[in-house]
């Protein structure tokens, strides 16, 4: 057994260092199964001191490593090259402190997003970022990716809800960036860490912002004959100065998949698209806003408008929306969930282009997206055992993201660059801008041991460390 593995076992205990190939199987990819690479070992530390000790050992042995939450990432961010080590945060799932008066909580990185919500709800509080994976994904992973979610239209992404982070640096030193009550630090390394895809530090604790639960919520569900009409109604709502919490669209393929699954929410199957609009706040205001929005929706000739006016109905609607990604899994053996952003005013244009790509490439693409943010998620169904189809999917995905850039958008709104979108970074940023990002990363991660080769374009020769997955036909 390698020296470094012996040392790691001495820190966390034998049973928390996994090296058996069968055990490692679950760690060879994240939710983007297009990329796979089995780590040499998976280590499950119990607390921050163990993390720091493990990182020191790995740093000394010059072993590449990456932290991993629940592995729900969608860009291949939680993989290490062959010979690398995964630090799995599954045992670090304690909520260390809740300060209801101060409006914050301190959590370990392995706490599941929705679990924090459950714990603070009785105090009249909530944690706002709500990625669709929130029943499984962890706060550490959410912070590393700067996750979004439907409610981010009003409340902002994860970075606006993390007040401070305690991190283990690439050499094993512990540092705290940010404060619970301070508005800013002398240098906002907390902000630099969030969304850095685990490349500048291992998060071992987070101070998260809690906000009051809204006294009143109204959720509207409008059915339209097409995605274009749903998008047009979104533009009208925004132009009217309304500020809903969420504006979510699902197309017909998604509606059918949801209704055929355990997530069924009573969505109208004959609709070309469904728009979910949610408003929250003081009761008087919420109802006034909902009425105004309903009026706007009616100007676009909806097939129907339903109001989820009880908590049960609202839960059902959101179960359908947040379960849609899972429901779409039934359309084929493999899925590629994309993530791109366009200015909201270009939504119709990009959705037309996605349709064009679907026809041209003969693929099956379903769409569900955060319309308020212009954040699209084309969901391509394919068969990984068909090498030609895999190539086609990648080419289609690249074309869609290039179109996002052409329309003034971004190659990723919430899933991150990971391994998936590195080849497009040079199309969004100039050579100088990428070099600056590399140089800033090198200050905190000088040897590139910490989640190597993610987020930024790889150096020549590094790409071979991760292989694209072509599943053998059975």
């Amino acid at each position, binding site marked *: 057994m390698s020296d470094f593995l012996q040392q790691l076992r001495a820190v966390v205990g034998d049973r928390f260092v996994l090296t058996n190939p069968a055990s490692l199987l679950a760690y060879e990819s994240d939710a983007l199964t297009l990329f796979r690479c089995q780590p040499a070992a998976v280590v499950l530390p119990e607390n921050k001191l163990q993390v720091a000790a493990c990182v020191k050992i790995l740093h000394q042995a010059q072993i590449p490593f990456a932290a991993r939450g629940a592995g729900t990432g969608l860009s291949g961010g939680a993989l290490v090259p062959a010979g690398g080590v995964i630090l799995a945060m599954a045992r670090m799932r304690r909520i260390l402190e809740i300060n209801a008066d101060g409006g914050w909580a301190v959590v370990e990185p392995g706490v599941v997003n929705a679990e924090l919500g459950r714990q603070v709800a009785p105090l009249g509080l909530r944690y706002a970022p709500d990625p669709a994976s929130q029943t499984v994904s962890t706060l550490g992973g959410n912070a590393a990716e700067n996750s979004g979610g439907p409610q981010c239209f009003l409340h902002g992404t994860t970075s606006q809800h993390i007040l401070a982070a305690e991190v283990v640096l690439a050499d094993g030193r512990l540092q705290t960036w940010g404060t*619970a009550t*301070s508005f800013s*630090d002398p240098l906002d390394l907390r902000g630099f860490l969030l969304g850095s895809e685990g490349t500048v530090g291992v998060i071992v604790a987070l101070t998260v912002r809690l906000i009051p639960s809204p006294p009143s919520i109204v959720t509207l569900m409008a059915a339209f004959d097409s995605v274009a009409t749903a998008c047009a109604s979104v533009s009208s709502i925004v132009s009217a*100065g309304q500020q809903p919490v969420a504006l979510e669209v699902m197309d017909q393929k998604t509606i059918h998949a949801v209704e055929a699954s355990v997530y069924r929410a009573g969505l109208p199957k004959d609709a070309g698209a469904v728009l979910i609009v949610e408003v929250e706040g003081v009761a*008087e205001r919420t109802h006034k806003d909902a009425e105004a929005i309903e009026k706007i929706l009616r100007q676009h000739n909806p097939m129907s408008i339903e109001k989820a006016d009880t908590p049960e109905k609202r839960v059902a609607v959101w179960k359908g929306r947040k379960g849609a990604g899972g429901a779409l899994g039934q359309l084929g053996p493999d899925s590629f969930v994309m993530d791109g952003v366009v200015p909201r*005013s270009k939504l119709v244009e990009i959705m037309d282009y996605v349709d064009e790509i679907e026809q041209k490439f003969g693929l099956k693409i379903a769409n569900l997206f955060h319309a308020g943010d212009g954040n699209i998620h084309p969901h391509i169904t394919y068969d990984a055992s068909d090498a030609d189809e895999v190539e086609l999917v990648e080419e289609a995905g690249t074309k869609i993201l290039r179109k996002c850039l052409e329309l003034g958008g971004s190659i990723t*709104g919430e899933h991150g660059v990971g391994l998936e979108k590195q080849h497009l970074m040079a199309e969004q940023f100039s050579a100088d801008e990428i070099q*600056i990002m590399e140089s800033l990363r090198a200050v905190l991660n000088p040897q590139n041991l910490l989640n190597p080769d993610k987020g930024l374009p790889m150096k020549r020769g590094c790409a071979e460390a991760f292989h694209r997955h072509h599943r053998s036909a059975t």
Partner: protein
Amino acid sequence: MSGESDLIMTAAHLDLQQQMLQAHAAGLTWRAVGTQSRMQSFVPPTKAGDVLLSTAELQQIHWIDAEDRTCEVDAGLSPATLHAALDEYGLMLGHSGCNDDVGTIGGLLNSGAPSLLAGSCGLPRDQVLGATWLLGDGRVIRSGARVVKSVAGYDVSRLLLSAQGQLAVGLRFILRLRPRPSDLRWYVLPTALQRPPASWRPRADFQQDGRRFAAWEGCDSPLPLAQSISSHEGDTAWKLARQQCIVAKHWVATPGPWQAQEMQAAGLSMQQCLIFDHLAHQSAWPQLAEDISLPAGSAVLPHRQASPWLAAMRQALLRS
């Protein structure tokens, strides 16, 4: 934004770039400033010998996209000018604070200045979607994106802004906009200690002279004891709030875990400590202490020292 830069540099941009190149060639330290209206109270004062690179001449609003609720403006524009321009579109920057008439957008974002709307909109820096920067070696780069959501690459904007003009000069900023509240009502609570119910989320909330002021949007009667003092933005309470923003930001707050560590290290108990909410440079403390009448037995924790990472980051931003 895409690939290689297609940024059009104005004469004022080029002038600043020239000054930066000269400072770089001469090995001089430089510092980005606007009108310097926030010096002392929010950011450390400049040092003798610093080359001051002023963005005050950069005053253009490049575009306002009402449909996407975004705009791009020069760093030297005054927030008040931007507020007025956005009024025409029924939009606002999610910010309200002091110095808006005399300061600059660049100063506002760089200084970490407070906002009365921080509770509902986040900090001024949270409104930044993208930016254009002049680096110490004369290069011009952009960060972020034009859209309201992007996680491509590192959040360089936040890092550079937090360095308060010591890492790069912010030339232009792409900002997120919000609909202007049509019905913002101010309430005053009888005592500063009285807290609104947890379920209410005020748009703004500050204390002054032993009273607590709060604003809610479109709410007729948020609290039985509260006295409504105004019903529209722009009248007395709002102006008062802006003027008193410096004082308001130094609330006595519940210490967070990291402050607790600092207090422990300083040998102070929780009860003895007044937690200063955020940046206030040491030179401004005596005046601030007078302004807010520190309770007996209070102590002021030292402001955090400059980040130990600053020098390395500054070096990293120069062409290798």
